[in-house]
């Protein structure tokens, strides 16, 4: 063979297309078949065989000439593929290889230094690449790997690293088209990435899809002595005064025959605890903890167990979580002075709301009514002392619907009005809804309730009857109670389109500085030269009050529904009013929300603060602050920012260390703070479990056809590599083999021989 070429292969030079060659081949077969058919009567097998052989030989030679065969001379080369050594650089490599021994990272460095020459010998066949990996991969030099790679990564993702190196990440040379012939993973196998659940199903398929053998050296066999709160299962939110179940999983390695306490704390205070008797041979314990939160809000809870002497990791002995405690149902007391359409539709709305626990009392007869014998009636005594006295604090909101306190002999409801006022000031909610027994008509102007109402009742002034359209005030355009639609203009238009009310209780707006705002007024009804307030709100003490100075709000629903608009405006108004009254956190003017309820160790806590003005417009340009407060009440981090045009600001806070923190946010000039909570994890996934997983690495090696060994005591396994790929490079040459004189002579000779024999044996 020519010295420039090192390979050859047969080829055809014919210009005929494949289909033409196929036709000719079929014709040749037909010629042989015809010969065989003509020779069926021949008794002498030798003659028959000779003639058939000559016909077949002629057909083959003819096809040979037509195909114009040639030898193609080639120059080829074997591709020099890559071999990757991946060294684990995650934090779990800081744990000892064995009790009292060097760290796994140190052992990995020594192993690579000891076997450097063997690995270098691979460079005869492949290019050797070395990487450090954790959650990402980064190229390192062999010398650096032999000295030791820093074990700082917060994640271990063996499969992700292999895929990344295969795809060319971390400086790999895949872009040049060279493939990995194999890989060697040096790791403790404590994977918390794609292989966290082991090699099975999709992860096994992804490993096989790599297409090269993965060899592995596992660092460490035995888990160090350790207690860990491995898992805490709890709902994202809980109902106040209802039992919350927290299912903690305690993982124990190397300890037995003793009792440990598992404690659940809410921001430092113990709320539940349990004793666990550690048994020999058992490593996991389900620890149920239960408690009933007594107040609403967002809190950080921490499940912890003491750090025992000799434990490898102390940080994983506690685990924090954030729990939002919400009210189970809003408990509403509705007292109606008489049956009316207003109270009927409002009661229907509240009864249908699954979040409302409604207790209602209707005054169905007055002192002057004569319905007959009491025994024939379904009426019950009005439990004034019970609902306005001892039970009052159990209600989130009290609604007086056209209810007068005065006309009921013997009930002495006026004795309880100071109690209701104090209930409001200490955080309760009161709504007074109009009618001919309400506001001034009910004589409330000179009672303790007037001190907390959002309007001043005008005693002795009867309600104004007649249709009156309503109009949003500037405060009402932005307030959530009167927001019927998104945007001030749309909300104003929605109110203007509603049917008019048919009566208005005459009241006067409170002077500025009393915490009250008129949201809706009736311009056609004047009180001392100003439009009569129709809907007003007030924040008084720690509570809230609402005034609806008409008994015809039902018309915004039922009468509006006749026109095809439906009763959405009515439902929206009353739902928003109730939510505002009971201080639904979503309606507070200052809100603070962390990016995530829990962050990894060392990560900052990002919070978004949203501030609104008292009129609920965005508080653009307002100075906002957020602070982290530790469990002992100390402020440990603070940040300040100025709200943007939308009233929001983002602040990043750096926690001093793991733990549970309250986030307290304030807006300049606003009295109330907004709070949230965040947990900074004591142990990230790398620290949560110090146990090596040699079995995982062995499974990886077996799945991909690689070698495996375990340190200590093990050595470099037999490294499996794919064979190098052969590729053609440079020029090629074709040497025809059909255009020789003997080819044609052979065809002529065969044809002549058949002709002669056929003549002699009498076939022609």
């Amino acid at each position, binding site marked *: 063979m020519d010295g420039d070429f090192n390979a050859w292969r047969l080829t055809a030079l014919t210009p005929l297309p494949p289909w033409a060659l196929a036709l000719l081949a079929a014709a040749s077969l037909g010629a042989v078949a015809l010969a065989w058919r003509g020779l069926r009567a021949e008794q002498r097998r030798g003659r028959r065989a000779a003639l058939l052989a000559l016909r077949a030989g002629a057909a083959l030679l003819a096809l040979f000439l037509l195909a114009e065969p040639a030898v193609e001379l080639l120059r080829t080369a074997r591709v020099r593929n890559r071999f990757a050594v991946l060294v684990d650089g995650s934090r779990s490599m800081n744990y000892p290889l064995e009790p009292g021994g060097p760290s796994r990272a140190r052992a990995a460095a020594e192993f690579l230094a000891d076997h450097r020459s063997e690995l270098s010998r691979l460079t005869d066949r492949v290019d050797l690449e070395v990487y450090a990996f954790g959650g990402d991969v980064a190229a390192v030099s062999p010398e650096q790997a032999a000295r030791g790679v820093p074990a700082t990564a917060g994640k271990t993702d063996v499969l992700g690293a292999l895929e990344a190196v295969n795809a060319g990440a971390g400086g790999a040379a895949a872009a040049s088209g060279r493939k990995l012939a194999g890989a060697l993973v040096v790791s403790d196998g404590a994977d918390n990435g794609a292989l966290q659940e082991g090699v099975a199903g999709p992860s096994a398929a992804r490993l096989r899809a790599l297409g090269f053998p993965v060899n592995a050296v596992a660092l460490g066999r035995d888990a160090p002595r350790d207690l860990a709160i491995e898992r805490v299962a709890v709902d994202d939110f809980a109902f106040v005064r209802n039992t919350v179940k927290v299912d903690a999983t305690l993982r124990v390695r190397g300890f037995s025959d003793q009792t440990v306490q598992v404690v659940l704390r809410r921001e430092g205070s113990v709320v539940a605890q349990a004793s666990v008797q550690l048994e020999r041979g058992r490593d996991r314990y389900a620890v149920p903890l239960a408690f009933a939160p007594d107040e609403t809000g967002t809190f950080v809870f921490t499940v912890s167990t003491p750090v025992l002497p000799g434990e490898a990791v102390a940080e994983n002995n506690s685990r924090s979580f954030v729990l939002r405690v919400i009210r189970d149902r809003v408990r509403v007391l509705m007292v109606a002075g008489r049956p009316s359409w207003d109270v009927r539709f409002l009661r229907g709305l509240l009864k249908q709301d699954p979040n409302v626990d409604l207790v209602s009392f209707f005054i169905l007869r007055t002192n002057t009514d*004569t319905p007959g014998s009491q025994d024939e*009636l379904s009426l*019950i005594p009005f439990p004034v002392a019970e609902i306005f006295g001892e039970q009052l604090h159990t209600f989130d909101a009290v609604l007086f619907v056209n209810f007068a306190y005065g006309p009921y002999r013997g009930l002495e409801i006026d004795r309880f009005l100071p109690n209701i006022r104090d209930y409001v000031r200490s955080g309760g909610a009161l709504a007074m809804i109009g009618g001919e027994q309400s506001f001034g008509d009910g004589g409330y102007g000179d009672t303790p309730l007037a001190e907390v109402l959002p309007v001043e009742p005008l005693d002795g002034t009867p309600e104004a009857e007649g249709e009156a359209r309503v109009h949003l005030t500037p405060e009402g355009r932005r307030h959530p109670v009167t927001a019927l639609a998104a945007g001030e203009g749309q909300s104003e238009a929605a109110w203007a389109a509603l049917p008019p009310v048919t009566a208005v209780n005459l009241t006067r707006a409170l002077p500025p500085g009393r915490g009250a705002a008129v949201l809706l007024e009736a311009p056609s009804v004047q009180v001392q030269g100003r439009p009569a307030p129709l809907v007003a709100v007030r924040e008084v003490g720690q509570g809230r009050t609402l005034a609806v100075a008409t008994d015809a709000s039902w018309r915004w629903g039922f009468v509006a529904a006749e026109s095809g608009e439906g009763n959405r405006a009515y439902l929206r108004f009353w739902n928003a009013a109730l939510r505002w009254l009971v201080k639904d956190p979503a309606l507070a003017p200052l809100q603070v929300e962390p990016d995530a309820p829990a962050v990894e160790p060392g990560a900052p806590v990002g919070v978004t603060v949203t501030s609104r003005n008292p009129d609920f417009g965005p508080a653009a340009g307002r100075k906002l602050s957020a602070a982290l407060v530790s469990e002992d009440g100390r402020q440990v981090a603070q940040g300040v920012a100025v709200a943007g045009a939308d009233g929001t600001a983002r602040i990043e806070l750096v926690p001093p260390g793991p733990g549970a923190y309250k986030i307290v946010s304030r807006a300049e000039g606003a009295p109330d703070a907004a709070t949230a909570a965040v947990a900074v994890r004591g142990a990230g996934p790398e620290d949560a479990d110090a146990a090596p997983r040699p079995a995982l690495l062995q499974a990886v090696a077996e799945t991909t056809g690689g070698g495996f060994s375990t340190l200590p005591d093990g050595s470099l396994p037999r490294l499996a590599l794919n064979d190098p790929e052969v590729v053609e490079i440079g020029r090629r040459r074709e040497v025809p083999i059909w255009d020789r004189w003997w080819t044609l002579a052979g065809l002529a000779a065969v044809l002549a021989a058949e002709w002669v024999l056929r003549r002699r044996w009498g076939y022609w």
Partner: protein
Amino acid sequence: MLRIGQVQHGGAWNPRPSALRRLGWELGRRTSIEPAPDVVPVRLADPGLHRTPMLYLTGTGSLPPFGEAERSALRRFLQYGGFMLVDAADGSDGSGFDASVRAELARVLPASPLAAIPRDHVLYKTFYLLDRQGGRVLVKPWLEGQVLDGRLAVIYSQNDLGGAWARSELGDWEYPCTPGGEAQRETAVRVGVNVAMYALCTDYKDDAVHLPFIMRRRS
């Protein structure tokens, strides 16, 4: 204020002109309900139907079929929370007003067929504790109703309640009540009170706070 709209239809729509006024008078005398002094005649297809959330439909003889606009308006009225008392003034059963109004109610609320209101329904304890029926006649010893979203949207009496309520300007009852006489009339008034209470309070008397008192009185 309870103002009742009386449905004007193509037949004899107001055979007992004084009945609702008298019922209002009784409501004012016996309960805290504030009745309106007048009754509002309403046509189902006319605007303003929803201004009176309680309707009264009565008649003698066949009720001419409603038009589609009337049926649609009544259906919408009931679906959004309206209430209607239907009273067969002719005491018919299977013919006359009874046959035609049943057919019409079935067309208005086809998914809510008329059914007898059980004896333990809250309707019978909204104000008076009732265990019998009243009316000018006693064709059926029960009331029937059509239920929407768990509440009675339509209540139907075949006993001519209006005939028992009707009273002349001089204070005389306009029709005798048979077979029960004045006791039957008193029951008819009490049924009217309970129906009005139900219209305004729905199932208020089913609230748990009332149950011990009611059970004690019924025992």
